[in-house]
């Protein structure tokens, strides 16, 4: 059993995490990886950048709790949770959740549980800097929490 939780400004290498989850544990039959990316807006809007603030110490504790809760609930062989902070650009990787297990259903459900719960309980906040139309001055907004995320978290 291998559980890894990291909060970092640096980018991550999905393939490296995949190879770790895949190779290290026996008898692994399934790996599910989720990668969350900085999504641009639909034209004429344009995302300039995203600033991810977090609560150091609490973020790591909450992600570790998610990993522990998933491992208690499903039969897992390994979990990896990486979340970036700081300034990110469109297309950048924000978050990686990787889960390995003997059978696919455990890996799929645990990965979804981790993402849904992370979205509503891990202390990260996004601030977007965007242009409303080409040539307009960039403005910054704190992203509002979505009711749909709250509903998705409640199914677990």
């Amino acid at each position, binding site marked *: 059993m291998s559980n890894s939780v990291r909060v970092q400004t640096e980018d991550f290498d999905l393939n490296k995490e995949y190879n770790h989850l895949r190779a290290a544990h026996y008898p692994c039959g399934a790996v599910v990886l989720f990668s969350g990316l900085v999504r641009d807006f639909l034209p004429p809007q344009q995302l300039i950048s995203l600033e991810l603030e977090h609560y150091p110490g609490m973020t790591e504790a909450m992600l570790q709790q998610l990993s522990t809760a998933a491992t208690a609930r499903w039969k897992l062989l390994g979990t990896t949770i990486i979340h970036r902070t700081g300034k990110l650009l469109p297309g950048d990787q*924000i978050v990686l959740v990787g889960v390995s297990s003997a059978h696919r259903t455990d890996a799929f459900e645990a990965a979804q549980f981790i993402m849904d719960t992370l979205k509503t309980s891990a202390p990260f906040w996004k601030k977007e800097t965007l242009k409303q139309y080409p040539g307009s001055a960039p403005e910054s907004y704190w992203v509002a929490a979505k009711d749909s995320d709250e509903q998705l978290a409640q199914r677990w």
Partner: protein
Amino acid sequence: MIKVCFFADLRERLGCADMLVEHFSGENIAQLKDFIVKQHPQWEKIFLEKKLLIAVNHAMANNNSAIVAGDEVAFFPPVTGG
């Protein structure tokens, strides 16, 4: 003494990232809020917002959560990571 932290939108609106609350003799979060609002009356409306989230020593908490000297209390808006 209680360490109090504010994050994100809340930090910007209050113009404060963290503060040390001294001479607090209450026992829970609700009393801490009252105590802070007495010192900063202009924060009252923000502190009454329904969606304000609370953590005590890095764990989610609520108005009834007990606190003691040395605790770290954080107030923040709904989270938007992932």
